[in-house]
């Protein structure tokens, strides 16, 4: 019995576990450790029209139960992703979610229209929330109207469902979610990183060359859970949740909050086998908790008892 398969717009997943964008490159490195076919899906590194080198180094810094990164969307550019990375990934029977980034509306639109044609790209993840790019970027992720407009533009050209990745650095996350829903988004992914900073004790200066960076890891999980809890009750879009996921227990907590699938980022750096390990442990944990299928966990934190699917325990 498969307790883990889930259906999302454009995504027919054998399990709801996928590496988060930017924490798995384009899969090559982790394919040394295990068969990528084990994954539910793969969210590839952000792709922009032109190749990007990104920010100067240092680009990462450790924090308590988290890390800061300011990679700056380094990527080989649309052309190379289409000609090299995606074809390489096509050897695996795993749906790819392409993370689309840019500084201008046109950038997003051109990347989206092209990359969504690739056979193994089953969905797009609109990255309107990267905290590490100076130009424009921020507005897309913090002003509802701008986000809505961008979503609509991208929807017009995309051949596959569009998930919008929300930034947690906003006063009202529900407002942002509603806006992109109105913009025609097929789903949401949340959360991206919180903007944070660390200073060097000896020099007094920021550790990151970019000064600020995006905070990820277990430290942000309570914020992500809260936001998914709020958003999942306010909009009808499926949510791929992320933020500090390290274990099967974390995955269940995300489902309880209202997520329909879960992405794992930073934890890949701590344990390259974290995704397959979680996929292996989930059925055991579900059994222990008394669930037939992981979908039964969805939204338990807020559903009235009546709405809950039968629970053995």
């Amino acid at each position: 019995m498969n307790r883990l398969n889930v259906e999302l717009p454009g995504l027919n997943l054998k399990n709801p576990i996928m590496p988060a964008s930017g924490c798995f490159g384009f899969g090559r490195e982790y394919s040394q450790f295990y068969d990528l076919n084990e994954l539910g899906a793969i969210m590839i590194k952000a792709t922009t029209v032109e190749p990007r080198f990104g920010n100067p180094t240092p680009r990462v810094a450790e924090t308590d139960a988290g890390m800061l990164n300011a990679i700056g969307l380094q990527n080989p550019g649309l052309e190379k992703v289409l000609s090299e990375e995606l074809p390489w990934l096509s050897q695996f029977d795993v749906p790819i979610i392409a993370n689309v980034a840019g500084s201008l509306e046109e950038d997003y639109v051109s990347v989206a229209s092209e990359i969504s044609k690739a056979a193994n790209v089953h969905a797009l993840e609109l990255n309107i929330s990267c905290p590490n790019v100076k130009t424009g970027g921020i507005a897309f992720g913090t002003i509802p109207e701008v986000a809505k407009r961008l979503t609509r533009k991208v929807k017009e050209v995309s051949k596959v469902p569009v998930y919008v990745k929300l930034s947690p650095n906003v006063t009202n996350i529900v407002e942002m979610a509603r806006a992109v829903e109105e913009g025609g988004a097929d789903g949401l992914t949340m959360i991206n990183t919180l903007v944070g900073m660390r200073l060097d004790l000896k020099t007094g200066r920021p550790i990151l060359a970019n000064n600020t960076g995006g905070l990820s890891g277990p430290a942000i999980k309570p914020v992500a859970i809260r936001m998914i809890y709020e958003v999942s009750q306010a909009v009808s879009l499926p949510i791929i949740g992320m933020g500090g996921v390290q274990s099967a227990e974390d995955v269940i907590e995300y489902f309880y909050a209202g997520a329909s699938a879960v992405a794992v980022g930073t934890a890949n750096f701590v344990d390259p086998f974290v995704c397959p390990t979680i996929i292996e442990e989930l059925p055991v944990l579900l059994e222990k908790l008394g669930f037939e299928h992981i979908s039964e966990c969805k939204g338990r934190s807020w559903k009235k008892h009546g709405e809950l699917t039968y629970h053995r325990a």
Partner: protein
Amino acid sequence: MIQKELCQIISQTEIADDIFEITVKASMVSQIKAPGQFVHIRVADALDPLLRRPISISSFNSVKGQMTMIYRRDGKGTTKLSEMKPGMELDILGPLGNGFPVEEMEIGETALLVGGGIGVPPLYELSTQLIARGIKVIHVLGFQTESAVFYEQEFLKNGETYVATVDGTYGTKGFVTDVIENLGFDAIYACGPTPMLKALERLYSDKKMFLSLEERMGCGIGACFACVCHKADDPTGFSYKKVCSDGPVFRAGEVVI
């Protein structure tokens, strides 16, 4: 092949002020390709600290299946590491990266090995492998002060060894570059602080040279783009090398340091 392995600690000793030598039993030793490769160590089976720590392999013994790392107790992670006792298990990812090419030298040639502080450790395995191939080695080791000096005797066994300390409390006063001036050699292999590597690259551009770089890392295997550097032939462009997977050792002039 890169392995993630729980390695038993065989021994751990403080060989100089805040400098620790740790030896572990690891089947991944059979995968080591060259001196200068490193491992990524998880020091706590908990969230504190979260990330792994990159540490060079300073020597290894394929027969015993053991490898040794030498590190400085500095922040959270290395402090925790220094508290671990023989018998305990350590989560190690490795061997990682590309090391120093020993085959680049001919029998009879002289290799100058230049190390600064915690850049010294990987040179020890390098030195051993070079002399095994009939190459003459000269070691120039730089440290902050006398109490930080380590492995001088070990290096002496392999060949000429000069020590420089910034404060002059031991050996020559000053930097490694002050010592090198008066030496003759065919190639340089170096590992240490970026300023030292830059100086060497500037002063000996004519020589064959291999430099081991340091950069803050996330994954350690090439997936996160934390550790990139520009290629020298395209200093402001998009092309790049990853210190963790393309390096940490690069031929001088290959990347911008």
